[in-house]
C-alpha cells in the first residue's frame, strides 16, 4: 500500500522539465554594479541621454535603500556585486525575419513549446521572446502594425517611439518605488512594449516568453503597456530557466496604463526553476507589477499562475484612479519542496464607484510555505467603492505552511469591503474514495486541484489555461498518497 510520506518524498525527485541550458556565445558584461556598468548598458543599447539620466537616478535611489524586513520569509543574502548586468546572445544583429535568428535559440524556444515560428500562426498568439536580456524575435509584427498596435521589445520602443516611452516610463512604478524597482530602473536590459491606439481591440493575444539562460546573470526586464481610450488588450507572459545550483535574481518591473474605457488583461504563467528538493538553487522572483486605471470606467485584470521560483515575492497591484474603474486579481500560487511564495495584491480605490475583485488560491505541498498578503485601501473620494476578496488555501501533506495577511484601510463610509477565506486539506478520505473508483492518487490530486483553481484558470486565454492545468498537474505529481 502506498505510504503518503513516501510519495511526498517522491515529489522531491521529480525533475524540472525545462532545466536545460543552451550553448550560445554570449556577450556578457563583467560582474559588478556601478555607474560604469549602467553607462555601458545604456551605450550598448544606444539610448538617448534622458534615459541614461533616469537610470542613474534609479541607481542613486537604489544606493539609499535597504532590503525590506516585513516579508514572511528569511531574506536570502544577495550579492548584487557578483552578478553580471548584461548578457546577450552574441550574434544579435538587426533581425528582419525569424530565419535570421540563431537556430540554437530557436531550438531552445521550440523545447519550451513557444509558438515562435509563423507556422504556428494558427494559435493567434503574437510572441516576443526575451532570452536573458535581449528580445529576440517578435512575431506578427506586420499584422499588428496595420492596426496601429505597437508590440516590440523595449529597446526598440526606445529607438522608435521615444515620446511614448518617455511619457509613461516610471509613471506607475517610479524609480524610487522600492529597492528592486530602483535596481531595475538602473540596469533594466530589455522587455516588451505595447501601445494600443484609441478604439482598437487588439485582435490577438500578445505574449512574451522570458528565459534566463546565462550563468550568474540577473534578469531585469521591463514591460510597459499602454491601452489608449476604448481599447482592449490581453497580454500573457511565461517564464522558464535552466537548473543551476546557485540562485538567480529576477527583478522585473511591469507598468500598465489604462485610459478611458480601456481594458488590459495581463496573465502570467510563471515556471522559473524552483530549486531542488533541499532548496538549493532556483530563481528569486522579486517583481514589481502595477497598473493604473487612469480613465473613467477602465479596467485592469491580473491573472497569475505561479508554480516556479525558489521565492516568489510580488503583489501585482491596481490603482483605481478613474471613476467607475475596475481592478481584478486572480491568483494561483503553488509551493512544494522548500519553495516560498509571499504574494498577493494591492488595490487602491481612489475614484468614485470603483470596484475590485480578488480571488487568491494558494496550494502548499512538501515543505513549501505560501503567504497571501493583500491590501485593499479606499480613499476619501472613493464613494461607493466595492471590494470582494476571497482567499483560499489548500494544503497537501503535513509539513507545508499557509498564511494570510489581509490589510484593509477604508477612509470612506460608503465603501463596501468583503473578505472571505477558507483553508482546506486534501484528505486521505477523499483520496481513498477516488482510488476506490479506479482513479490513482496522482490523478486524484490533479482532479481536486484543477477543481480548486478552476475559477482562476477560467480567466486565462483558453490555450494557456490548458497549459497551466498541465503545469499544475506536473508540479504536484506525487504530492500525496
Amino acid at each position, binding site marked *: *500500500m*502506498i505510504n503518503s510520506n513516501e510519495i511526498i518524498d517522491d515529489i522531491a525527485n521529480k525533475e524540472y522539465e525545462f532545466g536545460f541550458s543552451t550553448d550560445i556565445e554570449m556577450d556578457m558584461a563583467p560582474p559588478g554594479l556601478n555607474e560604469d556598468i549602467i553607462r555601458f548598458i545604456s551605450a550598448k543599447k544606444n539610448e538617448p541621454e534622458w534615459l541614461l539620466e533616469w537610470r542613474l537616478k534609479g541607481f542613486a535611489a537604489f544606493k539609499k535603500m535597504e532590503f525590506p524586513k516585513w516579508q514572511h520569509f528569511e531574506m536570502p543574502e544577495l550579492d548584487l556585486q557578483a552578478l553580471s548586468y548584461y548578457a546577450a546572445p552574441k550574434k544579435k544583429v538587426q533581425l528582419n525575419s525569424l530565419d535570421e535568428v540563431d537556430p540554437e535559440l530557436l531550438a531552445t524556444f521550440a523545447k519550451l513549446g513557444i509558438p515562435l515560428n509563423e507556422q504556428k500562426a494558427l494559435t493567434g498568439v503574437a510572441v516576443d521572446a526575451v532570452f536573458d536580456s535581449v528580445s529576440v524575435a517578435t512575431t506578427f509584427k506586420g499584422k499588428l502594425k496595420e492596426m496601429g498596435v505597437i508590440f516590440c521589445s523595449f529597446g526598440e520602443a526606445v529607438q522608435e517611439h521615444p515620446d511614448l516611452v518617455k511619457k509613461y516610463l516610471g509613471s506607475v512604478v517610479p524609480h524610487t518605488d522600492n529597492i528592486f524597482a530602483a535596481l531595475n530602473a538602473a540596469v533594466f536590459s530589455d522587455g516588451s512594449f505595447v501601445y494600443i491606439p484609441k478604439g482598437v481591440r487588439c485582435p490577438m493575444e500578445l505574449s512574451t516568453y522570458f528565459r534566463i539562460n546565462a550563468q550568474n546573470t540577473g534578469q531585469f526586464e521591463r514591460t510597459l503597456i499602454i491601452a489608449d481610450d476604448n481599447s482592449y488588450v490581453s497580454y500573457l507572459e511565461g517564464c522558464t530557466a535552466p537548473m543551476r545550483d546557485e540562485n538567480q535574481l529576477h527583478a522585473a518591473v511591469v507598468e500598465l496604463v489604462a485610459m478611458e474605457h480601456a481594458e488590459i488583461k495581463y496573465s502570467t504563467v510563471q515556471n522559473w526553476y524552483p530549486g531542488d528538493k533541499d532548496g538549493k538553487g532556483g530563481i528569486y522572483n522579486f517583481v514589481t507589477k502595477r497598473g493604473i486605471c487612469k480613465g473613467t470606467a477602465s479596467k485592469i485584470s491580473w491573472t497569475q499562475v505561479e508554480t516556479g521560483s525558489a521565492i516568489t515575492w510580488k503583489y501585482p497591484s491596481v490603482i483605481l484612479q478613474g471613476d467607475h474603474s475596475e481592478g481584478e486579481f486572480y491568483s494561483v500560487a503553488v509551493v512544494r519542496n522548500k519553495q516560498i511564495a509571499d504574494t498577493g495584491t494591492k488595490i487602491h480605490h481612489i475614484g468614485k464607484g470603483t470596484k475590485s475583485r480578488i480571488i487568491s488560491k494558494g496550494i502548499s505541498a512538501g515543505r513549501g510555505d505560501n503567504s497571501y498578503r493583500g491590501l485593499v485601501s479606499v480613499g476619501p473620494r472613493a464613494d461607493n467603492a466595492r471590494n470582494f476578496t476571497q482567499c483560499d488555501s489548500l494544503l497537501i501533506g503535513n509539513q507545508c505552511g499557509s498564511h494570510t495577511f489581509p490589510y484593509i484601510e477604508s477612509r470612506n463610509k460608503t465603501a463596501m469591503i468583503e473578505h472571505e477565506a477558507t483553508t*482546506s486539506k486534501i*484528505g*486521505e*478520505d*477523499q483520496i*481513498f*474514495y*477516488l*482510488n*476506490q*473508483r*479506479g*482513479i*490513482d*492518487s496522482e*490523478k486524484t490530486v490533479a*482532479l*481536486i486541484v*484543477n*477543481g*480548486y483553481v*478552476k475559477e482562476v484558470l477560467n480567466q486565462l486565454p483558453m490555450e494557456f489555461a490548458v497549459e497551466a492545468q498541465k503545469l499544475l498537474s506536473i508540479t504536484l505529481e506525487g504530492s500525496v*498518497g
Partner: protein
Amino acid sequence: MLTIKNLHAEVEGKKILKGINLEINKGEMHAIMGPNGSGKSSLASVLAGRDNYTVTEGEVWFNGKNLLDMAPEDRAREGVFLAFQYPVEIPGVSNLNFLKTALNEIRAYKGLPALEAREFLKLTKEKQQLVDFHSNLMNRSLNEGFSGGEKKRNEIFQLAMLDPQLAILDETDSGLDIDALRIVSNGVNKLRDGEKSFVVITHYQRLLEYIIPDFVHVLYNGRIIKTGTKELALELEERGYDWLKEELHLKESV
C-alpha cells in the same frame, strides 16, 4: 469469484477481523449482518484496500488474482466496487467529470479506448433512469451539499455506471427514509443481472425485504458465526443477536 480464507486484520494494533471465511459465486447476493462493532464495515474496508488496515493473516482471491497484493485503484479496476457508508464530498470536481475520469481509467486498465463524449452521455442518461438519479445533480460538485439520501443514490448510480463484478454495499440503508430506501433498493435490484455479485452490509432486516439475499451471514467479534438464507434475517429481526452469542459461548465452552 471471491474467496476469503481465514482473513485476519487489525487497525492501530487492535484485532478487528479474526478469521473470516467466505465464498461468493457469480450472481449471488450475500447479506452480512451483525451487531455494532462486529467488524462488518472493516471487512468492506479491507477488501477495498483502505490504508489504515493491516492484514495479518489469510488470503483473498478475486477471479484467481490475489486481491491483497493490489493497490486500491487496481482492485477497483479489476471490478471491486464499494458503496461507501459515508460518501466523501469533493468540492470543485463535478460529478460528471469525476465519473468520466473513473470510467476511462477503468477502461484504460482493461485496454479499452476512452468513451467518446456522446457515448458517455448516452450511458449516463440510461443509468440515471435505471436508478432514478436526478440529472441536476450531475453537474454539481461530487456529493457537495448533497442530502444523505442523494449521496447514497449517487453511490448506486456510480455502481451502475462503473458496472463492477462485485459490489459491496456498506450500510447503504443507514440514514435513509422509507422512500429513499425503496429507490435505492430498486436500483440495486435492477442491477442484478446474474453476473454481478453483491455483498450487502446492514444492521436491519428492513433492507432485505427489498433486496432478497441468497445467503445471510452473521458477523460477530470478527468472525462469521452463522450462515443461513433469508429466513435467518427474519429470525434475527425477531430475536436479536443475543441467542446467537449464547449459542457461540456454549460451543466455545464445550
